[in-house]
């Protein structure tokens, strides 16, 4: 699970994470986010990473990292055992999203999800021009993309309301600037702070 343009959402996520929290980062890549949160918020962090090369990078970056496949659920973790569970720019490559969201809300008291907004106007424009979009947030060609479940801000809002997930906060940004006017059209990256209803 490669994390591109990786620092774009760190600061916002950090604002949602309390000091000294216990944090689980799903698909932690090279562990950069957990290290960022450790520096800023003095958190105790664990990462989950399936890819062996990323796993090793996390270990080298001093992250405590568990190698496992998120698709298999989080059965190794007790209910409410983490203050925050983060799924940063990973949801779009997951297969069973309903099950994973349920698991995240079971294990974490709060959940942070970030994803590239497929409703972003540049993506819409590229599709209008007849091609699959390629951008900073979606850097892959259609044939080599790990992404299988791209969604828009509107889609995810609907998903939350239908699945009894309460949105504590939502930010939609483009190049690190908050978008308030038509976020589903002008926002490139969506960030959600969630709890169970």
């Amino acid at each position, binding site marked *: 699970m490669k994390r591109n343009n990786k620092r774009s959402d760190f600061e916002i996520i950090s604002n949602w994470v309390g000091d000294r929290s216990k944090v689980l980062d799903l698909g932690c890549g090279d562990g950069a986010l957990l290290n960022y949160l450790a520096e800023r918020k003095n958190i105790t962090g664990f990462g989950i990473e399936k890819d062996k090369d990323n796993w090793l990078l996390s270990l*080298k970056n*001093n992250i405590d990292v*568990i*190698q496992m496949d998120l698709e298999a659920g989080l059965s190794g*973790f007790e209910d409410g055992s983490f203050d925050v569970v983060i799924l940063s720019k990973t949801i779009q490559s997951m297969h069973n999203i309903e099950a994973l969201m349920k698991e995240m809300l079971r294990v974490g008291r709060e959940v942070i999800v970030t994803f590239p907004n497929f409703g972003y106007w540049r993506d819409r424009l590229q599709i209008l021009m007849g091609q699959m979009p390629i951008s900073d947030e979606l850097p892959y060609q259609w044939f080599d993309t790990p992404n299988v479940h791209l969604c828009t801000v509107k889609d995810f809002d609907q998903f939350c309301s239908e699945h009894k997930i309460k949105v504590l906060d939502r930010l939609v940004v483009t190049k690190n600037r908050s978008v308030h006017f038509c976020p589903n059209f002008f926002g490139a990256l969506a960030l959600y702070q969630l709890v169970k209803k």
Partner: protein
Amino acid sequence: MQDKNSVGIVQSKIFKSEAALLLDCGRKLENYELVYETYGTLNQKKDNAILVCHALSGNHHLAGYYTKKDKHPGWWDNLIGPGKSLDTNKFFVIGVNNLGGSHGSTGPKSINPKTNKNWGSKFPILSVADWVNSQKELITHLGIKKLKAVLGGSLGGMQALQWSIQFPDALDHTIVIAAAANLTAQNIAFNEVARQSILTDPDFNQGDFYEKKLVPKRGLRLARMLGHITYLSNDVMKTKFGRKTKTKGYRYNFEPEFEVESYLNYQADKFVNEFDANTYIRMTKALDYFDPTKNNIKNLSRIFKKVRSQFLVISFTSDWRFSPDRSKEIVKALLDNNIKVSYAEIDAASGHDAFLMSNDHYHAILKNYFLKMLNKK
């Protein structure tokens, strides 16, 4: 023969314990000896020591050679040496033959000072906790208060786990490879077949075969052959041997002709010359009895409450004797207690044996974990 990263020629040493060792079985061992080897240099602060615990058929000879003509290095030579993943330029590495072993430590083959005869059947059955107690004596004798790490695979991993529970303040890191918090029924079953093959060998003579100059070769051979089948995966056996035969066409007799038969027979022959039958049946008992969970895996979280060390847990995808699921149980119990742990599930075809093999990713993990130990606590 010797690569430039070898620890070179090594010599075993003997530690004679003055203190008696009270055993889990209720008996007492007085004046026991442990044979051990060390590699690298213990630094002035005496805080760079790593204890490597061995598995069922292992011993204290981890790395290097005894003589220039020696063809085979120690059993974990691919990992341990100057510049290797467990770098002896940085760490002081200790290998010890478990009490009751057959490579020099006090065991069934030794002379019982009270009778002036071989211990044989009278030698007690030791537990993993007993071994850890005796290893602690050795560590104290070497002037080490706290080990940087205890490391082991299989039964060795169980000892590392036991160290973290029994002496939580005596180690910084615990590295548990291809192990489990207790054995499954299937594992105990394999051990029982191995034991029965030895116990029913007429040359075993209830364990008192030394003075009669007997060796229960048949039993020991069968036990080892069975073991070897379970240490490999079906896939690796297919790749390694398939249905290949040594000669063309079938011979219609009972001589080994398939390559897998030759392999097992070769391993069995090698084993009877270097391993003691009484040690083998006792070691398998130690495996069977090991169970810090007291037969309830949920207890593991409670037991880990007193653990102070950090953990690295490693499993191998094709290992069906100590499957990744068993390692995950350990990881879960550690996470329940907020203990720092990293867990890797290594893609390897060789089965349980994979923990002994050279695999770039596996060794890179260990190397980086060892380096991490030096960087921060």
